[in-house]
């Protein structure tokens, strides 16, 4: 009797475990579930849930499960999924080249129909290539400008908007002298988005990350740029400790509370301010400052849809992607994301009439972009986010360290 009980307990325990393992993997025959991981531009989950429901209504055999993940964690999440054999079908985030280089992705012309592909703005599609083949479909883009608080500039008696580094430095000094309690420039070199702050400043001095087939992070132009930013910080013309100042929680928040006069802002900054307590800021914008004698630039940043081969859902993915790019669905996508530049010609034509977007769309042809077509770019971005703040102590040493990381990653 006793023996039977023991055996029974063993069987029961094993059975329970087996049931809990197997139970989750049961699914209906013939239907496919696409797994998508998408970055959270604003509040994207309701948009994706709604779109996925509509899609399944039109295509009853395909379900789409969309996981919306914050920008801070999406790269880690996707990498973990790939590394642990749970590769998603579609991903919407900021890079593609490393996955393309490793042969994990469908080509852009496999992801969407020809009609959809032809509607993508050529500049953006060009930035989606690896070895001259597009492996990603751009979803939207942004551009940067120099935003300022008009009230602070009036108080400080600033008449003319600075266009060069020298003019900016003079204006910042004037603000520091005349408007106490305000940081003249909000400089976010904390990990969140340091690569953007670095790129637009360096771009104004002719500095880039990648040139002529080589990583050039410790170029003369880049070191000069960081030396200039160090000079601004040392004179207390920025908020203290840029190395630990993140874009959203620190720089944009200071600007929203009226404590910063100038900031490098993206096209979506006005919308962000409205939602985050900065609605009262009297906002102005102009093109970003450049080094004396150099051409001003804007930084274009675009994001991507990529499709992974791992689960073999090519046909289903193509249906879903074309559904996203149907004009009304895509317009709703842009609306949910909030104030970005569209990636399609058709939506772009409408956006060009939007007074908030038009100036940025005009700037785009002269924009510099990240070297997103390089497989090593994610590692370089990581190195910049991690270390660029320490360049305010020793510019040359930090840029050399980042260059070393880039070369190691590119091997």
């Amino acid at each position, binding site marked *: 009797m006793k023996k039977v009980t023991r055996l029974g307990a063993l069987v029961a325990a094993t059975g329970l475990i087996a049931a809990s393992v197997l139970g989750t993997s049961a699914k209906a025959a013939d239907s496919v579930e696409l797994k998508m991981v998408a970055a959270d531009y604003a509040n994207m989950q309701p948009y994706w849930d709604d779109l996925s429901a509509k899609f399944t209504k039109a295509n009853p055999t395909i379900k789409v499960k969309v996981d919306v993940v914050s920008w801070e964690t999406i790269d880690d999440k996707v990498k973990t999924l790939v590394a642990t054999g749970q590769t998603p079908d579609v991903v919407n985030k900021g890079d593609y080249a490393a996955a393309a280089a490793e042969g994990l992705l469908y080509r852009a012309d496999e992801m969407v129909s020809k009609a959809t592909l032809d509607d993508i703005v050529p500049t953006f599609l060009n930035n989606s290539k690896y070895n001259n083949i597009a492996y990603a479909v751009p979803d939207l883009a942004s551009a940067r400008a120099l935003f300022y608080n008009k009230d602070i500039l009036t108080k400080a008696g600033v008449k003319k908007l600075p266009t060069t580094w020298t003019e900016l430095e003079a204006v910042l000094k004037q603000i520091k002298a005349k408007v106490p309690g305000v940081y003249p420039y909000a400089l976010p070199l904390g990990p969140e988005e340091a690569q953007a702050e670095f790129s637009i400043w360096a771009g104004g001095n002719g500095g880039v990350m990648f040139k002529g087939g080589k990583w050039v992070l410790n170029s003369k132009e880049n070191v000069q740029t960081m030396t200039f930013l160090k000079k601004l910080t040392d004179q207390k013309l920025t908020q203290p400790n840029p190395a630990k100042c993140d874009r959203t929680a620190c720089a944009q928040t*200071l600007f929203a509370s009226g404590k910063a006069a100038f900031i490098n802002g993206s096209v979506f900054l006005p919308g962000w301010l409205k939602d985050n307590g900065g609605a009262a800021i009297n906002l102005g914008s102009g093109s970003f400052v450049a080094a004396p004698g150099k051409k001003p630039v804007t930084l274009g940043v675009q994001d991507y849809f990529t499709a992974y081969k791992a689960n073999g859902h090519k046909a289903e993915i193509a249906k879903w992607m074309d559904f996203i790019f149907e004009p009304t669905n895509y317009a709703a996508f842009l609306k949910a994301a909030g104030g970005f530049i569209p990636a399609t010609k058709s939506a772009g034509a409408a956006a060009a009439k939007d007074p908030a977007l038009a100036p940025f769309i005009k700037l785009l042809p002269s924009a510099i972009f990240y070297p997103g077509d390089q497989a090593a770019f994610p590692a370089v971005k990581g190195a910049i986010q991690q270390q660029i703040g320490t360049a305010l102590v020793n510019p040359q040493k930090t840029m050399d360290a980042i260059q070393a990381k880039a070369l190691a990653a590119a091997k």
Partner: protein
Amino acid sequence: MAQRSANKSRLGALPWIAPALVMILVFVVWPAFEMLRTSFQEVGSTGAVKGWAGWQNFATLIKNPDLPNVLIRTFIWVIGVVFFTIIISLPVAQLLNAKYPGRKVVRWAVIIPWAASLVMTSTVWKWILDAYYGVLNEIAMDFHLLKEPIDWLANTKQSFVWLMVVAVFVSIPFTSFVILAGLSTVPHDIMEASKVDGASPWQNYRDIIFPLLRPSLFVAAVINLINVFNSFPIIWVITMGGPGYETDTTTTLAYKISFRDQDVGQSASMAAINFAIILVFIALFVKASKNQEQS
């Protein structure tokens, strides 16, 4: 016959320990095995495995220019946090052991930081120490101790000290309760005898209580050593190991190598070394606790 029944009773225990065994296999042994396997693999920056790498990952890690400083800092972190935790927990345990009205409330108050999630506690501390909105600056300025706000986490040495303060703060509850358990085993008759013999309270503590506390101090020290060494959330939430690598320990460095430098293989080799260090701690613990049992 005796042998047979002993065997039988061992196997008979299986159904009752099976769930625990399965948990250990699934949540401890298997991930550890995967980690070790990954440390010998070449993993692409997307997370896809490209093949075997031999000792290459370990070689890259040893050449990592940030590693020496991080190792030294990890040593300071572990020794410093465990030392101060125990020094502070000793009097706290006395306080919890003394009899006075409201002792229950005090005991609960000490438990709370332990019960709260580390991420939550760290986030609260991050905001307490914030330069612009932090309550610490606010209080210090209201009491005229400060003229203008200080960014407590700006200087890397200073922010590392604050990280240690938070780590000590969250380690005190567990440690003081382990010591409290030790205190409750001190026999009353010995205490009374020493009182009758005219020992001063300090002599009493130094010569009777403290020696009897040694087993529980030892348990507290080793478990804290392991906990503090592995501590990720405090550092990650408050400074993310930054700026640069200047407040990293080996645990946060392993994460950064994987998700910033995009080198999963090298990161796994860092994790494997961390794992080896922990195994040494555990071996010491097992050996020493056996010695104590014998003596």
